[in-house]
């Protein structure tokens, strides 16, 4: 259910704004049919969220189609025109560089970049926001950026972790866990993925597929003799859309 400024919204009034196969419409349909209440102060907040969710899916698809490679943190690489590679394998925005240009460069000069899946998720989120925010707002809000993994998250990204969400929406980040991972390949302990809608996911290093594809792939990297399968966790990691909307609405 969707609740805007004190009123429940019926499906027809808003859904017809979006083509039936669009990401916005798919997200909207899940929200409208949910028993969970999605509350907004104004319609533009909802529209912002739908737009940003579409942008997350687009950024994930663009990264998948690019030559951005999978590399272990010990072996990451980046375009040193914009980023300084830190000792632990993260990318720190260089002084005097426009943050929006630096983020866009990852998608343009993708072959110069390589990292692990958790960092790729953070890059997808920044890549989505840079395409939704006016450039000057993005540069002001995200004036410093450190791309590493979940341990270093800028609060202004507003990333939230929800252990047991009511629904899963396109643009959410989810996690396939591999509990019996081979100790010599700890980078396969799990895969962070972006929900693309229609049961499809993008995971950096693995590509696009359904849940069984990710489970089967992770199972190949289990400790020998293990019969414990990888699985998709119920939790989600998602942007705080309302908080981000405050910068532009």
């Amino acid at each position, binding site marked *: 259910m969707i609740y805007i400024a004190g009123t429940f919204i019926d499906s027809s009034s808003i859904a017809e704004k979006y083509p039936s196969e669009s990401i916005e419409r798919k997200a909207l349909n899940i929200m409208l049919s949910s028993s969970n209440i999605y509350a907004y102060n104004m319609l533009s907040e909802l529209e912002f969220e739908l737009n940003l969710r579409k942008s997350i899916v687009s950024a994930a698809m663009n990264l998948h189609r690019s030559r951005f490679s999978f590399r272990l*943190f*010990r072996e990451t690489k980046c375009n040193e025109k914009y980023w300084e590679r*830190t*000792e*632990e*394998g993260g990318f*720190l925005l260089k*002084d005097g560089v426009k943050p929006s240009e630096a983020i866009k460069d990852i998608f343009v000069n993708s072959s110069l970049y390589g990292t692990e899946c*958790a960092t790729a998720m953070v890059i997808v989120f920044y890549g989505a926001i840079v395409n939704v925010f006016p450039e000057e707002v993005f540069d002001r809000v995200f*004036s*410093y950026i*450190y791309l590493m*993994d*979940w*341990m*270093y*998250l*800028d*609060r*202004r990204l507003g*990333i939230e*972790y929800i252990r047991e969400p009511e629904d899963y929406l396109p643009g959410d980040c989810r*996690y396939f*866990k591999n*509990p019996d991972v*081979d*100790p*010599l*390949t*700890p980078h396969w*302990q*799990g895969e*962070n993925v972006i929900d693309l809608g229609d049961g499809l996911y993008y995971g950096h290093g693995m590509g696009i597929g359904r849940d069984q594809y990710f489970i089967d792939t992770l199972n190949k990297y289990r*400790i*020998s003799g293990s019969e414990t399968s990888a699985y998709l*966790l119920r*939790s989600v*990691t998602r942007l705080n859309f309302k908080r981000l909307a405050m910068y532009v609405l």
Partner: protein
Amino acid sequence: MINDNSVKFSTLYKLYSEAKSRGISPQRNALFTKRMHLNSLHKRALKILNAVRTRKSSKFEQVASDDEYNTYLALKWMLETGYRDDGLSKDYDEVLDAAAALLIKRYRDKNVLPLIADLMFSRYREGRYIYDLIWAYFEYDDPESLLYIGKRLQSSNSKDVELACKLLCFIPGICDNKGDSPAQFAKFVDRHDDVKRNIVDNIGDGLLNDNDGDGPAKYAIFMKWFNENKNYLYRTMESFHQFNSPQIYEISLEAKYLCIPVSHKDGKFKRQLTEHEKQCLSAFMNMDDNTKVLLANYSNFLFRQNYYEWNVWIHYPIYEQIRIATAARVGGI
């Protein structure tokens, strides 16, 4: 001549790397092993070194299959004598990480936990890669591992306190802002003045000093929490690979209420429940979350204070238990 009890893994590693760079295969070259006077431990360590570099367990299996015990001893020797030279090279560090992971995951060796903690903290101070070590460390299903991290809250080095807070973020009172604050960028402050300037400009410099000076207070909070809950903790499947403030261990409120220890691996009771305990649990499970916390805290408090009184209390109907616990109202978990 390296056949000496005081020789370290780093020495063997350097000799091995030198030989490899000269096109000699140390393992296959009998002359090399003879000249170096390699003993069986060193030879096995070299085999392990080659195996872990492939990043395939099947290769390690081949080494371990003919003598599991001596393979374990060789791994332990590699880590224990090698960790002081951590930072020798990226490859060397990766070998140490692999040895740590194998000792924890395959051999369940609890004794290497303090050493792995040392490695994690020393690398963190230098801004080096620690994620595989953190993963390996928490793969050991025993909350005792938290003690080696908790004690760093007392460190005079702010980086130690910072990392300890991150790792123990799931404990109430240790990490106030759930780990996603821009203050985390403080890790780079020493080396990146531009970042510091930006943080101060945008957020205010208070966040840069989140942990300054309050380490001992946090250590007291940690120890109180640990001593109250250690018997009821079990490992969740959450990790730093998944998000920024994982709940590494969770408290079994049911166990804390009944004062029965649980398996740290899966949270199951360590013994069968009596009929009375089953009845108590059934009533407990129907309560809301806040009431469960109240009952679990009070039960555990009373159990440790006065077993006789606890035994009387636990036999009251649950609403009487709630009334007494509410009147007493002990602190939070």
